[in-house]
């Protein structure tokens, strides 16, 4: 800045010199304060940009965390369902086995029944033949008895025919039941294999990997969140220092303006 020196007496010259020195000192202080403001402004800008960057990273980390939590829940649900399937198929297999024991008993029973029935029917027929032969010799034999043995013969035929039907269907039942048992045993074995493959205890299983991903995403989120906290604190501090430097600059500028005005007025 240029200061006009007044060419008056020695005394006033000395006063002007002092004023000039004061103005120079003030100007220098303003320059220093401006430097401080510029420095702090640069820091604030840089840290604010960094904060925005970390904020973006945090929202990415947050999305990842939400997605991996969802995946973890989905796999947990799957594991739960597979465990249910395994348990229920084992129960169903036991039930089929029980049913199978019953049908085994039926097929043995029906075989015994048909054998006995045929034997008995033979006896009925034999008696029937004997009585009819006796009637031919002795007409006194009751007609009623003749009718009855005839009916018994018919009924025996009927019973055998019905029991044979029952025998056929019983064996069909046993056959389908055996198939059921085989199929259910297979389901149970497959369900167990499936359950084992998604077990958490396996090192490289779906739940263990998806849990690992979730844990990683949590750690990443926490780290980023901490980074944001640190940078936010830095930003607040830098902003406070900038404000202080700005106030200092403003007051020095005001002081310099006043001193200039005074110097020009004298």
């Amino acid at each position, binding site marked *: 800045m240029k200061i006009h020196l007044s060419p008056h007496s020695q005394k006033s010259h000395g006063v002007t010199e002092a004023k000039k020195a004061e103005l120079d000192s003030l100007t220098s202080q303003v320059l220093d304060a401006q430097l401080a403001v510029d420095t702090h402004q640069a820091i604030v800008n*840089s840290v604010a940009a960094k904060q925005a960057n970390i904020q973006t990273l945090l929202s990415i980390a947050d999305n990842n965390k939400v997605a991996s939590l969802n995946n973890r829940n989905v796999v947990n649900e799957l594991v739960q369902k597979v465990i249910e399937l395994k348990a229920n198929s084992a129960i169903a297999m036991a039930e089929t086995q029980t049913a199978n024991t019953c049908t085994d008993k039926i097929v043995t029973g029906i075989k015994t029944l048909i054998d006995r029935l045929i034997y008995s029917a033979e006896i*009925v027929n034999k008696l029937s033949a004997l009585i009819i032969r006796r009637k031919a010799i002795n007409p006194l034999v009751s007609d009623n008895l003749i009718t009855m043995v005839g009916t018994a013969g018919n009924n025996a035929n009927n019973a055998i025919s019905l029991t044979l039907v*029952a025998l056929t269907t019983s064996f069909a039942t046993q056959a389908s039941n055996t198939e059921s048992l085989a*199929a259910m045993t297979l389901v149970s074995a497959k369900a167990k294999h499936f359950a084992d493959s998604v077990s958490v205890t396996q090192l490289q299983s779906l739940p263990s990997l998806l849990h690992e991903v979730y844990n990683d995403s949590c750690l990443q989120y926490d780290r980023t969140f901490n980074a944001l906290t640190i940078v936010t604190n830095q930003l607040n501090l830098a902003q406070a220092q900038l404000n202080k430097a700005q106030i200092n600059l403003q007051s020095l500028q005001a002081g310099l303006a006043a001193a200039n005005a005074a110097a020009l007025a004298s």
Partner: protein
Amino acid sequence: MNPYNQNLNSAVCAVLQTQALTLKTLKAQHTASMFTLYYTQGAKIAATQNLVYAKSQLATHHIPIKQLANNATNLSANVLTSADQANQYVKQAVTNGAVAAANIQVAANAIIRLASDAESIFSIVSAADFDSEIYELAKKMRELLNETAYGAEQLAEDAMEASMKIAEVSAATVYDDAKNANLSACNLFKIVSAHFDAALQIVNAVSDSLTAVDIRENTAEGNYTDIETSVTAALAAYTSTNNTLNLNLNVVVNNVPGGYFSISFTPLHNPFKHDVANVNPIKAYFILLVKTSKAIAFNIIQAQQLHAINARCCVAVTESVSDKVLSQQISTETAWDADDEAIIPGNQYVAFIFAIFTDRYKKELNAFDDFLSAPSAPFAYSIPLNTPENSSIWVEDNNSNIIENAADLQISQAVKFSLPANTPGLAVEYRCIFLTVKKAGNEKLKKNTFGFIFNDVLAEAIASGNYGVAVPATGATNETITYNTAITPATTDNFGNPLIINNEYVPAILAVYSGGEAEKRAWYKPTLSDFYTTASFKYLASHY
């Protein structure tokens, strides 16, 4: 100087000035291309790191997860098919069981009717007094049919129970469970497939951007080396001109504490060697330091005036290296410029050689002017700041039993360094910058190698968010001070990328003047530690 010499001097000045200007322009371009190269290299490093990360995510998570989910889907589909089949068989068995039970009941009824017939026949036979053969046979028939009817009744009961047991088999539940498990597995597969596709897309995108950045880097590097070649050529031209036309006037700045300028030049000679008497036409040489801003205006008259009043800025040349080279050291602390002002660090100066011819030489030519050289290249002195030795920089982990990759272990690392204290009252900031190492130095490879260009100019330009300010240890009383920079999750490398766990970094320390006085900024030259030989460290997982 006589008019001829003045003309020569003007010509020399003009030539040197033109060449100096070319050199200056090229150097500015060189710096600009250096920054371009640096930032492109930074982009390449970030892209490479992104690719490594994206690939590792794909390899360690997305690929195995998708495969396992695919397996689970296959297994569940398999179980579902079997469960469906079992359910069908069981349904058939239930139907068959019911039919069989009903048939057995019907048969049992018929057998009971037969048994009752047998009973009636036996009654009549008993009453009618038949012979023993018929009686015995009827009795036997009655007994056999009674037993058979009893067995049939029992069997009918058992068949009913069997039918019940078959109906109790929970095949439908198992089938529903298998359907649910299959739905769940398919749903999971859909989700993880989408994630896999996204991850694959990221790898492709990052790979593409790396290719693009790589091309840009090659261009920037080519441009940088081109300009470097031009700078070298321009400097050679300037040196050659200065050598021939300006006494090879050269100033070396020694930036040591209480630094000095070493000024050397070739003495003037009589252009004709046979004139033995006048082989050395110079009585005395003086060196004058002039502010660069005033160099153009500085002329022989001013030099003569300064010499005439015996001004303290005229430094007489007293040393001589050889017949062909004269040299003089001028301490920055005791030197004065042509304005009779002390040498200020950071200000640019040029040197002039002022030579006084011998009286005999003057008389011979009948020219009584003396000689002033053209200005030297501008130079500046700056006060060096202390920076730690490479061996005094180390990284401390707060946990001595470190398990690598242990994500849940809390480790905090800090860069520490120690150095002699600076001048009391001098405000110096130590910036800790983390550089990604391409290959860490070892016994075979003495120096660290980096994937980017780096120097003090670039270090000074790093934004404040991308370095850590070291904090001096409190209560240090001795002359050596230890500084500490904590590494936090917010710590980044020089380009602003967050540090990557298990990657190698080298801490570089930049000392800068941090005092508030604007004019002193130019006094102190930022000093960078020797990051080529500083030991690298592995960044470990830290949570806090």
